[in-house]
């Protein structure tokens, strides 16, 4: 029982990060039909930039804010420089462009920074909190709370603001969105910026626990993609549930079977989802757009 709780704590923590990565996938997918495989690099950049700014003497909060802003700017640049000019190309080409971009970002990070593992101090110390026989790191609470806060803010954005509705309208029917006066190009820019910022935020939250190096983005993109598939590509609710579920599945696999099998979970989830319910748990959307 204690062991189960312990596994769930660690599962929920990584799951929250997967959920944020999946949310990034979702936002860009909705705005442009593109599955952005550079999503994991945004998380990495959030961690790396914070690390180096902090080491250079910038206070942690400011360093984190800088990291998020710089990453958001890079997300916008990715859209402006790589995706927008290729508009009209088949979606597959756009996806390949994002894979290229992720390789580029990784390479550049390795050159500008280094290949080492890094961390910065946890926000509220490293003393574990005891809960019913199990323990949880204060930073895990930051990760979970931060992720939930992001989802809550986004929910308000989509359900209460006209701009949020414009994003939904663009996802639903791009041409009709233009006809009511929505600048769908700008919506795409917004979505890339927002996705990148959310990814970087996840990186800031989780780096004190998992550490960061230039190459952590690949795995994160894969896991986030699996989570998004599981929950249903294109729905924020699916991203949240899919992420947490995948994190828990991994933790339970590592705990009760063997940590060797942990890495296979994401693949099995992707394959299983494709075979059993291609729409995912919450994705009702039939892809009717062309």
């Amino acid at each position: 029982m204690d062991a189960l709780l312990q596994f769930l704590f660690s599962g929920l923590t990584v799951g929250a990060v997967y959920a944020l990565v999946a949310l990034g996938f979702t936002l860009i997918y909705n705005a442009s039909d593109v599955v952005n495989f550079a999503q994991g690099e945004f998380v990495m950049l959030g961690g790396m930039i914070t690390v180096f700014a902090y080491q250079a003497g910038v206070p942690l909060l400011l360093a984190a804010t800088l990291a998020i802003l710089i990453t958001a700017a890079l997300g916008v640049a990715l859209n402006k420089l790589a995706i927008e000019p290729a508009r009209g190309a088949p979606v597959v080409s756009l996806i390949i462009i994002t894979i290229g971009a992720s390789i580029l970002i990784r390479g550049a990070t390795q050159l500008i920074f280094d290949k080492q593992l890094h961390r910065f101090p946890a926000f509220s110390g490293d003393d574990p909190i005891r809960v019913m026989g199990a323990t949880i790191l204060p930073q895990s609470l930051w990760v979970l709370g931060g992720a939930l806060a992001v989802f809550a803010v986004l929910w308000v954005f989509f359900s209460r603001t006209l701009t949020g509705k414009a994003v939904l309208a663009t996802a639903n029917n791009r041409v009709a969105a233009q006809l009511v006066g929505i600048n769908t190009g700008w919506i795409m820019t917004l979505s890339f910026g927002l996705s990148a910022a959310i990814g970087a935020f996840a990186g800031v939250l989780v780096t004190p626990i998992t550490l960061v190096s230039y190459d952590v983005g690949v795995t994160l993109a894969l896991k986030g993609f699996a989570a998004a598939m599981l929950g249903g590509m294109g729905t924020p609710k699916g991203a949240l549930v899919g992420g947490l579920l995948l994190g828990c599945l991994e933790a339970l696999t590592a705990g009760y079977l063997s940590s060797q099998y942990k890495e296979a979970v994401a693949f099995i989830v992707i394959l299983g989802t494709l075979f059993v319910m291609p729409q995912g748990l919450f994705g009702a959307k039939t892809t009717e757009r062309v």
Partner: protein
Amino acid sequence: MLTVEGVRSCYGRIEVLHGIDLEVRTGEIVTVVGANGAGKTTLLKCLSGTQPISDGTITFCGESFAAVPAHKRLSHGLAQSPEGRQIFTNLSVEENLRLGAFLYADDRVQSDMDDAFAMFPILKEKRNLAAGGLSGGQQQMLAIARALMGRPQCLLLDEPSMGLAPLLVAQIFDVVKSLKARDVTVLLVEQNAFGALKIADRGYVMETGRITIQGHAPDLIADPRIREAYLGI
């Protein structure tokens, strides 16, 4: 109000509009009728900016639309209710209407919405339902109402009667006719030539990407060529 001169447009390498000339004057209801595949929808898409033109000019209220992207044309006063309705199926009826007035954030949004509900009471009843769940006729009403929320001076309507039961067709044509009283100029594209010509001031007949006949609507209804080809009389 709207002047179209020599407009050509292509899908890939295939040209489907071969130089269209057309004029809509303020306060008119003008209709473009023609058979399946004549290029009517393509013409409207060129006007709203969602389809590029390869030659010719579109002038709206004295201003060239050459450099005006699709999403800015509504703010110039030109709205389109597109073929196939193209409502936001995942959003509620009310959200669809609100988005129709995306450009505005003033008190008139609410009164315009009340107007729309008065025009189509069924939409008020279903205001909180997902628009994708509406029947074809209701979706058409929503598409027209959403376009009107954008406060257009000129409304482009693409086959509003398509796929509707005769009673609904009559109701939709009545609504289009009533737009005159609201100072909305209308360019109506229809396969239902008789219904369209009955409410229009002037009409154009389009055949495989060209305007072949034009004139006052009553004259067109009386024209033997049109009676034979389009009115089935």
